[in-house]
């Protein structure tokens, strides 16, 4: 990489100067880290001599680097004019015709590359599908002797997505035509269509499910018409029965990758494919029109969302049921920490629910669908609760919540949930009518001020402040503006009978209204705060005033109209519907912030087989007189000893690699044995002087290894290349462990953030200025810690814990640089403060591109805050997933593809490429749907009542409308402010609670506390989705279980007749009575205590009887952990 490369990448893009500086600095810093790492690597003391992650700036770059083909520039040009798919077709044709290959490349090689590159372009060069999802592309012969093309699909094709995986076949056909090959002729050797039908059904039944359900006739139709062969490698150990040993299908097992392409791709997305085929004028695919198509598993979508809500997971609380008064009320808008699949709830909720939720907790919501993460926003409506003494109180703020927390008996109304319009847009959802919220009122007021000239000045003051109750009533009388939402109750949710009861108080005046106790339920539904005194209900001050003005100045006439209409008519004050709908919310995964470790944790990637004991301790292994390891044949010819580094750590001479034939055991210089005509591997089982090497490494690093110094059992990579012991020693010294690719990682849940206050992130004004932040969002110079500042594209705010971990990583890297690589320290960082400004990369699982980010501060939460664009560059939204953070330098120095398994899927989650810059117009479309407006216009609120699709709304400013302009970089406005990002606890109870039972207990407790949740329903769901399957599953599994050796861990499908392990040790059962009965007592107790169906009760009793008939009557009746009262 050269510095100019980076600069030229951003030249010509319209952006403010400070952004130009920002990107330039990022590029320069990235470059200097590269240089430093390259220098260290050139010492050749490591097992690889080069920096392995490659720099890639954009899609074209990524595709070119990933496939090592020089197409970046032509592809970039193509992409400017055409879409991804068309560019892929054009370019793959050129590759097929040999434009980018060496003259001696075979046609098969060219076609292989063409299909892979084509798919890479379609998947934007981020997934590993093109590398590992396509197993091979071959030219085969039809029965009539003509040549055809065959594409073999492997499991990781899944990462490409349905449509893209099917497009692979379009690309393959396109290059087939270009190469002049014939069509594939199905069923010419065997019944291949029948094979696919059988195989697909077996896969569905035994292995895994698909997104869609498809018909047999469609499968037959597709396979008999495909112009290229869809083949695959086997993925699961299930065999077909009737279609074995076929001429062209090499395996009898199911081929998951190929089936997925067929099911979720070609048939499931046939409509989408047809559109593309028409668009690009591809012929030979007309038969796709005849498909019956797919049925989404789980009926239509709306039902699916409701169904998902009903699927309660054990231990995961349900907070709100869909469309139920008292549940979370939908509020449209975005705060600086929401949007992009993060939704806002009031921090009071977290406090009164004992931190069932925290920032980053994943929740499942039914509107607009899918998952989301929790963010806290304190400018939305708070919950209303009933206290133990019967009083109903609307909680004012967090302080108030903490005061009354222990007196809360029931949460009557949960308050608002803030969901951004962009999330509706992204999910292609229908808008739901908005309740009458403050912003709606303000927009109506704005409109009035334009019409009424005389009093507009008076009215304008209420654009930024809430009117008092008297003012609100006056405004409504005088200007016919509906009653301000602050003084509005859920009049729309009571009946006219309820209203007539409310018209009969025992005592009434403007300051105080008294009711008999029987109206309590109505008042609770209304959300009207009240007091209980001596079996009487008392409304005072504000509530009394509102009731008096609405109900008692002019007595309403009860008729068939809705309650709000009746009251509006009689009182002269316009009453709008405060409620609209409630959003169903249940907890998904808890938030996560933790070091990424291998299982079990490992200090160094060095194999000790079973010599190191259960902890895989290298020190223990080194005490063996002769230690043997199966590792890479790197030999120092001078010392005649094995070496890990390219240069011998003893004498410093460059080492050589040998190969050993597994058949004749000859040592060779080539990876091929001429004598035996077979490949010779570059690794072998040989003696390794572990003890002396450990001593040498300790001496070199000036560190002492402590027990246990953990290695791995065996290496998973093809050549069995190990890591230098020095790396492990240093990691252990700084309390770090390694991931399977040699990097040190920290995982944190993704969370979006567009603005911050310095006080939130613990960074000083001075430091922020050094980082290039000079102004707040209003353009005022940065002076105090509470100014709001817009977050830059690649700046990240990470959890404190993560910061500490990275500081240790810095120290580890500096130690390596100085003592191992023999260069100078780079970081010299002693604490988290000094880490600010350093570069990291973010990497999402299933992808292989690390995105450069810059640390600018820390957060007392368990999430990594960054702009939606940055998360999007990693191919993620904020729906609750956790991505890895690692130091950029670490990934350059210590990552090696050589450590990773060659097996399918081995390259996932590895920083093969590094992307230094994130430009908004290159982001995923999802990031472009982020709303960046300051106000939702009146037009928007009004159109929600028509329940139109979000995509039909044009009145809301989203990033998409700013692309290619300067403002795509800044002025990401929000509609709702918040004063804090978090609550008094940074971790949710879920990540601290231990057992499933504690979690279940909390779930029942929450259900009892929240009025909008039905406890019996929860219990009933838990029984049928968790307890019964657990008991039943274990009971069934008991009588077909495996057995395991207590010493060597070998597993047996059934008890062998010799009755011991081959190693001579005892075998134990994997499932015992205890594991079967784990939840039995709990289940029995629940079916007695709660109102569940007869069927369910019968199931539990039948299971209990069955357990006795399998194990006999329980003699001891020993109490289990789960038998709590």
């Amino acid at each position, binding site marked *: 990489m050269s510095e100019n490369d980076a600069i030229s990448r951003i030249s010509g893009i319209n952006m403010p100067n400070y952004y130009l500086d920002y990107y330039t600095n990022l590029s320069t810093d990235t470059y200097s880290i590269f240089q430093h790492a390259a220098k260290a690597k050139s010492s050749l003391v490591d097992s690889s001599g080069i920096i392995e992650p490659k720099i890639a700036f954009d899609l074209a770059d990524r595709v070119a680097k990933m496939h090592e083909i020089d197409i970046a520039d032509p592809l970039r040009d193509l992409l400017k004019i055409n879409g991804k798919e068309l560019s892929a077709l054009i370019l793959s044709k050129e590759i097929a015709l040999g434009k980018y290959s060496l003259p001696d490349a075979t046609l098969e090689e060219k076609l292989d590359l063409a299909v892979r590159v084509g798919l890479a372009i379609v998947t934007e060069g981020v997934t590993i599908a093109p590398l590992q999802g396509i197993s091979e592309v071959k030219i085969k012969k039809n029965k009539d002797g003509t040549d055809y093309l065959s594409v073999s699909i492997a499991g990781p094709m899944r990462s490409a997505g349905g449509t893209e995986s099917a497009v692979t076949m379009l690309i393959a056909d396109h290059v087939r035509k270009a190469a002049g090959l014939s069509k594939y002729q199905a069923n010419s050797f065997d019944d291949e269509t029948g094979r696919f039908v059988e195989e697909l059904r077996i896969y569905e039944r035994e292995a895994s499910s698909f997104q869609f359900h498809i018909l047999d006739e469609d499968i037959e139709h597709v396979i008999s018409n495909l112009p290229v062969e869809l083949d695959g490698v086997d993925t699961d150990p299930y065999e077909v029965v009737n279609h074995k040993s076929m001429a062209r299908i090499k395996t009898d097992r199911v081929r998951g990758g190929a089936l997925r392409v067929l099911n979720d791709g070609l048939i499931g997305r046939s409509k989408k494919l047809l559109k593309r085929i028409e668009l690009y004028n591809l012929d030979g695919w007309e038969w796709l029109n005849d498909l019956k198509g797919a049925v989404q598993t789980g009926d239509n979508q709306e039902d699916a969302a409701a169904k998902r809500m009903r699927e309660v997971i054990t231990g995961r609380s349900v907070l709100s049921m869909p469309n139920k008064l008292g549940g979370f009320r939908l509020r449209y808008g975005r705060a600086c920490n929401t949007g992009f699949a993060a939704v806002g709830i009031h921090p009071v909720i977290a406090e009164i629910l004992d931190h069932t939720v925290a920032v980053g907790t994943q929740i499942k919501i039914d509107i607009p669908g899918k998952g989301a993460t929790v963010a806290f926003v304190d400018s939305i409506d708070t919950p209303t609760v009933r206290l133990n003494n019967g009083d109903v109180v609307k909680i004012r703020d967090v302080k108030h919540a903490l005061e009354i927390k222990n007196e809360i008996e029931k949460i009557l109304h949960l308050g608002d949930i803030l969901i951004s319009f962009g999330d509706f847009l992204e999910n292609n959802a229908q808008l739901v009518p908005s309740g009458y919220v403050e912003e709606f009122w303000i927009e109506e007021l704005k409109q009035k001020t334009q019409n009424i000239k005389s009093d507009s000045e008076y009215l304008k003051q209420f654009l930024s402040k809430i009117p008092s109750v008297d003012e609100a009533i006056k405004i409504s009388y005088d200007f016919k503006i509906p009653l301000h939402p602050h003084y509005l109750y859920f009049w729309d949710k009571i009946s006219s009978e309820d209203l007539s009861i409310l018209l009969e108080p025992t005592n009434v005046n403007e300051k105080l209204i008294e009711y008999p106790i029987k109206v309590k339920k109505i008042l609770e539904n209304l959300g009207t705060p009240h007091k209980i005194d001596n079996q009487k209900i008392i409304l005072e001050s504000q509530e009394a005033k509102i009731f008096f003005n609405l109900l008692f100045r002019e007595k309403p006439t009860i008729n068939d109209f809705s309650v709000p209409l009746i009251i509006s008519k009689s009182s002269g004050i316009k009453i709008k519907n405060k409620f609209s709908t409630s959003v169903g919310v249940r907890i998904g995964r808890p938030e996560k912030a933790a070091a990424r470790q291998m299982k079990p944790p490992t200090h160094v990637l060095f194999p000790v087989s079973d010599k190191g004991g259960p902890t895989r301790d290298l020190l223990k292994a080194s005490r063996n007189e002769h230690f043997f390891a199966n590792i890479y044949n790197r030999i120092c010819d001078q010392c005649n000893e094995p070496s890990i580094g390219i240069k011998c750590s003893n004498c410093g001479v460059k080492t050589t690699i040998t190969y050993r034939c597994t058949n004749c055991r000859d040592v060779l210089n080539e990876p091929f044995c001429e004598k035996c005509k077979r490949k010779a591997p570059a690794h072998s089982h040989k003696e390794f002087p572990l003890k002396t090497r450990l001593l040498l490494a300790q001496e070199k690093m000036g560190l002492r290894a402590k027990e246990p110094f953990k290695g791995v059992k065996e290496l998973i990579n093809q050549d069995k290349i190990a890591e230098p012991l020095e790396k492990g020693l240093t990691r252990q010294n700084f309390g770090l462990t390694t991931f399977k690719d040699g990097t040190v990682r920290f995982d944190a849940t993704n969370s979006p953030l567009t603005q911050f206050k310095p006080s939130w992130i613990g960074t000083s004004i001075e430091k922020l200025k050094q980082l290039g932040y000079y102004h707040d969002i209003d353009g005022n110079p940065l002076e105090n810690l509470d100014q709001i500042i817009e977050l830059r594209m690649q700046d990240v705010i990470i959890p404190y814990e993560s910061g500490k971990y990275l500081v240790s990583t810095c120290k580890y890297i500096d130690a390596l640089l100085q003592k191992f690589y023999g260069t100078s320290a780079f970081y010299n960082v002693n604490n988290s403060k000094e880490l600010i400004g350093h570069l990291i990369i973010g990497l999402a699982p299933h992808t292989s591109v690390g995105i450069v980010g810059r640390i600018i501060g820390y957060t007392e939460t368990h999430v990594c805050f960054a702009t939606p664009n940055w998360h999007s560059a990693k191919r993620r939204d904020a729906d609750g997933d956790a991505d890895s953070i690692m130091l950029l330098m670490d990934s350059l120095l210590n990552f090696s593809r050589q450590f990773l398994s060659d097996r399918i899927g081995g390259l996932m989650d590895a920083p093969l490429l590094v992307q230094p810059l994130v430009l908004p117009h290159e982001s995923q479309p999802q990031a472009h749907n982020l709303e960046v407006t300051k106000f939702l216009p009146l037009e928007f609120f009004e159109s929600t009542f028509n329940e139109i699709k979000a995509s039909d709304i044009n009145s809301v400013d989203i990033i998409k409308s700013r692309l290619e302009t300067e403002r795509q970089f800044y002025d990401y406005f929000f509609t709702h402010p918040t004063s804090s990002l978090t609550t008094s606890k940074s971790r949710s109870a879920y990540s601290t609670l231990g057992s499933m039972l504690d979690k279940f207990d909390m779930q029942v407790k929450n259900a009892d506390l929240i009025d909008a949740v039905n406890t019996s329903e929860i219990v009933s769901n838990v029984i049928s989705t968790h307890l019964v399957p657990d008991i039943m599953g274990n009971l069934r599994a008991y009588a077909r279980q495996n057995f395991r050796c207590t010493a060597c861990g070998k597993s047996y499908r059934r008890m062998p007749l010799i009755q011991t392990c081959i190693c001579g040790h005892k075998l134990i059962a994997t499932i015992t009575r205890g594991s079967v009965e784990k939840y039995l007592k709990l289940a029995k107790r629940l079916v007695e205590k709660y109102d569940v169906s*007869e069927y369910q009760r019968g199931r539990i009793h039948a299971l209990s009887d069955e357990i006795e008939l399998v194990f006999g009557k329980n003699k001891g009746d020993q109490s289990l952990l789960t038998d709590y009262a």
Partner: protein
Amino acid sequence: MKKELSFALNYALNKGFQIHPDAFKILENVDVKKLEKIIKEIVREKTKQKLFQINQDDLETYLGIKEDLTLQSEIKIISEPSSKITSGEGVKGYNALFSSRFNKLKRIISDRPESKMLKSAASVKTAKSEEDIYVCGLLTTRNIERNITKLILEDPSGTFEGIIFDNELQKTANTLLMDQFVMARISTGKNSGYIIKDLILPDIPDQAKNKSESEAYAVFLSDLHIGSKYFMEEEFSEFVSWLSSPDPVARKIRFVLIGGDVVDGVGIYPNQDKELVCQTIQEQLKKAEDLIDKIPKNVKIIIMPGNHDPGRRALPQPAIPKKYNSGLWERENVVMVGNPALVSLNGVKIMMFHGQSIDDIVKTTPGLSYDKPTNVMRHLLRARHLSPIYGSQTPIAPEMEDLLVIEDIPDIFHVGHVHRAELDMYKGILLVNSGSWQKQTPFQASVGMTPNPGIAIMVNLKTFQVFHENYSSNSNNILQS
């Protein structure tokens, strides 16, 4: 009065006959289709005798209603597992179970002359023999690579690994069921390995059949699925009332065997509650009792559980527990047995097994399908084991004795489970899959299983002649044989 009945009466009256009121009562219950024929024949007979009154006795004799006291109805339960379950647990139980399996089957195979040359797996390695040697054991592993099949057998001394080159023998090897007992003839190969030359299964020897002395009939039923929406209640009730009809075959029926899945059960498959008309086991069994109540009291009924019935799912299964329906247990003409059971009806031995293992076997054995369950039954007989495969779908409990070994050779082998009624013979044994009384369920439709329900199979225990009554209205729904 029915039209046919008045026609018959007029016919008799016109010929100058009188009909006794008791005889009239019998005629009322006769199948209308047969009425005309009966009357005409009796009239012809009586005219010869010059007797002009038709009385009760005439009809009873003609119809065979008169209880034929010469027909025996003797039930003996030779073996059934109910009292033997929960004998073992965990490692200890499974050790005993598989030792028992090995020993029982080794005893069976030791009747063969080759068994004299048997060597243990451990001693094969030291045996230096030019001649072929024999080993036996449970099949633990089978690998098929290109054109070689590799088998691993296991006995209490250890494992034996051999390879098969012969094509025909490979086919045999591929149909072996995992964990079944097999004896192999082997020789030493060139490269120190062993070549399997022949595979010998315990199988069924030729033997003489037991017969009932009198012509009593037994009915074979299974898979009623009472309580399910898809239970063919109407058809089944029609069949039950046929049992008390004057039909000559019905008159001779003395036994009804129900081979499991009497009720649809509770919690057997996901979302079952939506396909049930009776939501609890108690309700389902009550309904079963009500239906069984209509079977004549001189017919003895044997009820065995299947995978849908309450109790336990792991094999062997105990009888349906009394606590769910004491009425059935207390009924004099009902015998509750476990699964599998060996019963003797007038001396004829009948092996009853619900057939859970068919699922595992069909899935792993080439050439077998759900459409032809009797082929699977042949495999079981050859293996002399009702459910050899361990660790797959069918749970097998760790009992101290393997009760699933087929020790006694039955005269009739009765299986259900797959809802395909089919008949066949194997080495003189009558194979009966008794089909079902449940219509095709949505699940069966989704996996392409077409049952042939509503067929009652009846066997004359003296002649082994088979009859069947088909209650399905679908003309494609026929008994296979």
